[in-house]
Structures are given as structure tokens and as C-alpha cells.
């Protein structure tokens, strides 16, 4: 029983069914990708400061490249690159460490100067930019289509997907998961996978588990379609900003507001519209006449180290976590769902996830991924 019809839930359902796992059911409160998956920026990045995220992302990119053929669906996966701008000596020092680690893992990332950055992203204002890191195999895909692709392939393999079916309670018996209560009745199950994004916290509470996840709103806006002139995602951690031009021409952009308070509010704010506009015009002044057509909000399920929570939890048997992605669940999904399927079916994992277990927060030894917007 998987709770959550986003990319993680549907992807895991497919990977389990592919391995011959029977009676997989996905429960979704609304429609597929109606939560964080469908609200994300669609970016796929391998440039991280921790090995855990970098490895998961690199494997995911490899899998994204095979997805269309495997699932027989056009997911609009493109490798337009990611450009990360460095403004301070501190950033340069950190990126040197990141790039050394990433290159050791085999990633095609390199340092470039501001001039080359302007060639990759024309009209980019590089005033104050000391250097940048660039990885051409980073990219993007359509989150709705990827989720749909997994869901349809899963259905063909016998997975049952129930839309508009919110979970109202989870019951346990003798320290084990026993059943899930939904708006449409109760279902007995020995195994529940918590793939509910920001709402994972509420689900875990139903069985007395406190996940260290803080749901926080994150906003994005997109402009009218203009002639395509760059393919890369541009990130500045200093400005807390990322933006890219979609193939259709719209320029999509978001920033992490450090003042954002935790909560489940995902309404659009005027503050975001105004601040984002100022930030983007600073980075790309040529866009001043381009019109914004739409803004929206979604939830980051943020953990203390910005790394996901994967696998079982102590105290409740049969309760598997796949959440806490801290804004990066879409891009890590292909490898994460593959690993979780390996875990659930009892296979030997081809990439260890012990360090992403929930219990890491109890020992106090966590190392935060610093490459987070």
C-alpha cells in the first residue's frame, strides 16, 4: 500500500510491479502529481555537496535517459545543463570541494569563467560573478508526464491506483502496520509506504512516529513564451534563485524565501511576485518587458540535512518512508524508487541507503547538503 500519487509513489509502484510484487495499491488524495511533484520546477541536477545526493542524482539521470523507451511515454527529458554561479570566495572554496567530489564520482562537471557563462546563458548579468560550475548532462523533464508514465506502466502490470481517496487513519496492531482507513473504507495491509510529501508528517503521526520534516511553501512563476535562447538552468545560491527557459519558451523561476514560515499554506503571494521579479531583472535585465503569466506554490518537505528519509523506521514494523526530499524529490525519483523496490522485495541494494535512514537524526551526526535553493 503506497500513500501518495506523486512521482515517488507511482514510480515505486511501477518498480515493485516490474519485480513481480503483487497487490500494489496507490492511494492518492486528489489526482496524480497534484502535490509537490506537479508543482516543482522540473529541473534535474547532479551537482550536490553530499555524495549521497550526487550518487542518487547521477543514477537518476541515467535512468531518466531510458525512461521514455522503458515506459513508452514521452516525458520531455532534456539535458540542457545546469550553471551554478559563484559570487564569493567562500562559494568558490565550497564549489572546489563539490566539483572534486563530483568529478571523482564521474560527473561531467567543470569550472568555467564568466565569459563562458554568458555564452551558455546569453544576456546573463555576470557582474560580481567570480566563476561558475557547469554540468551539461543536468537537465529537466515534465513532472506530470513522468508521473503519468510510471502510473500507466504500473497499471499495465496490475497496480491499482485510487484517486480522490484521502487517508484518514492508519491502524497498527502489536507494533505492526495493520490497516489503512480511507474516505472510501478500510483496507487491511501489512505494509505502508509513506510517499505523501509534506503530508508525510501527518501520516507518520497517525502511528506515533515523529518525522523531522518541516513543510515549507516554495513559490514559482513563469513568463509568456519568448524565442528560446538558452537551455541551461541557472542557479545562484547567494541570491537563492534558479531559473530556466522551457522548450516552449516560457521562463520559469523560483527562489527560496528565508523568511518563509513552516506550514501547509501553498497560496500565491504578492511578495514573491515582486521579489522574484527584482531578482531575475538583476540577473537577466534584458527580460524587463517580458510578461509573467502565472505563479503558483508548492510544499518542500524539508529535513535538517536536506537529504531524504528512506526505508523503515524503528518502532513500527511495515512502515516505509520515501519522503523528506527537501525540494528535490522529482530529480532523485528514478533511482530512489528503484532502491526502495529493491529494499521491499528483499534484494541486495546496489547503492547503500543506510545513511538516509530515519535513525541518523537520533545520533546527531548529520552532514547537511549545502547546495539547496
Amino acid at each position, binding site marked *: 500500500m503506497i500513500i501518495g500519487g506523486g512521482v515517488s509513489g507511482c514510480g515505486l509502484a511501477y518498480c515493485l510491479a516490474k519485480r513481480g510484487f503483487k497487490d500494489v495499491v496507490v492511494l492518492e488524495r486528489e489526482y496524480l502529481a497534484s502535490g509537490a511533484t506537479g508543482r516543482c520546477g522540473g529541473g534535474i541536477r547532479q551537482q550536490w555537496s553530499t555524495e549521497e545526493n550526487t550518487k542518487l542524482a547521477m543514477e537518476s539521470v541515467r535512468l531518466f535517459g531510458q525512461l521514455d523507451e522503458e515506459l513508452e511515454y514521452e516525458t520531455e527529458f532534456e539535458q540542457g545543463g545546469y550553471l551554478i554561479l559563484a559570487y564569493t570566495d567562500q562559494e568558490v572554496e565550497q564549489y572546489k570541494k563539490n566539483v572534486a567530489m563530483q568529478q571523482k564520482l564521474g560527473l561531467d562537471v567543470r569550472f568555467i569563467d564568466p565569459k563562458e557563462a554568458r555564452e551558455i546563458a546569453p544576456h546573463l548579468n555576470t557582474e560580481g560573478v567570480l566563476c561558475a560550475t557547469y554540468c551539461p548532462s543536468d537537465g529537466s523533464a515534465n513532472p506530470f508526464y513522468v508521473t503519468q508514465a510510471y502510473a500507466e506502466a504500473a497499471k499495465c502490470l496490475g497496480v491499482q491506483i485510487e484517486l480522490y481517496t484521502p487517508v484518514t487513519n492508519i491502524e497498527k496492531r502489536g507494533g505492526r502496520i495493520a490497516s489503512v482507513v480511507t474516505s472510501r473504507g478500510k483496507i487491511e495491509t501489512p505494509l505502508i509506504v509513506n510517499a505523501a510529501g509534506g503530508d508525510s508528517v501527518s501520516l507518520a503521526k497517525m502511528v506515533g512516529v515523529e518525522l523531522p520534516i518541516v513543510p515549507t511553501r516554495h513559490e514559482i512563476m513563469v513568463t509568456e513564451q519568448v524565442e528560446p535562447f538558452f537551455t541551461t538552468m541557472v542557479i545562484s545560491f547567494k541570491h537563492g534563485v534558479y531559473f530556466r527557459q522551457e522548450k516552449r519558451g516560457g521562463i520559469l523561476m523560483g527562489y527560496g524565501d528565508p523568511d518563509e514560515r513552516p506550514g501547509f499554506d501553498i497560496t500565491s503571494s504578492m511578495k514573491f*511576485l515582486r521579489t522574484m521579479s*527584482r531578482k531575475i531583472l538583476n540577473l537577466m535585465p534584458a527580460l524587463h518587458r517580458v510578461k*509573467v*503569466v502565472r505563479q503558483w506554490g508548492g510544499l518542500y518537505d524539508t529535513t535538517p540535512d536536506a537529504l531524504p528519509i528512506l526505508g523503515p523506521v524503528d518502532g513500527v514494523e511495515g512502515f516505509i518512508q520515501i519522503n523528506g526530499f527537501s525540494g528535490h524529490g522529482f530529480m532523485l525519483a528514478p533511482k530512489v524508487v528503484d532502491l526502495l523496490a529493491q529494499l521491499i522485495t528483499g534484494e541486495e541494494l546496489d547503492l547503500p541507503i543506510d545513511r538516509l535512514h530515519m535513525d541518523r537524526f537520533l545520533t546527531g551526526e548529520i552532514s547537511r547538503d549545502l547546495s539547496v535553493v
Partner: protein
Amino acid sequence: MTEDTIICRCEDVTYGQVVEAIEQGFTTTEEMKRMLRCGMGACQGRTCGRLIAQIIAAKTGTSLSQVPLPTSRPPAAPTELAILAGTPHEETS
């Protein structure tokens, strides 16, 4: 209305595509918007929104009032970044 009748002028979505999506099970305007992009273009669904709701109502045998329109998202009309940022800029045209 024929298969090729354009329903969403911003994203070139046809009547045939909308009907096909309904047959695949996308029976809400929110899902339709995400699958076909109708409502994501310059008009933000102000032209096609009600048309699509009508087609969904007709094809699924429900009344129009039971087919909610997608969430209305700001800004109310396409607005230049410079205006939103509140920064002065020189007229270039």
C-alpha cells in the same frame, strides 16, 4: 465542432485532443490543464476554461456546475517583469 476545432488558442489544443483525454480518464479541468497545457498559455484559460468544462460535462454526463474550473492564479493579466519589480526602465519601442 469537429476533431480539429481549436479549443485552446494559446496552446493549440483541439476538440479531438480534449475528448481523447476525457476518454483516458482525465475528467477534471485541473488534470486537463496539466496534460494538454490548455489554460497555461497567455490567456490562462480565460478563453478555453469554460469550453473545456462544457465538453467534460457533456461527455461525462454531469452538469456544468459540477465541473469546477482550475484554480485561478495571479497575476490577473500578463504583467511585465519591470512593472512587478517596480523598477523604472527606458522605453525601447
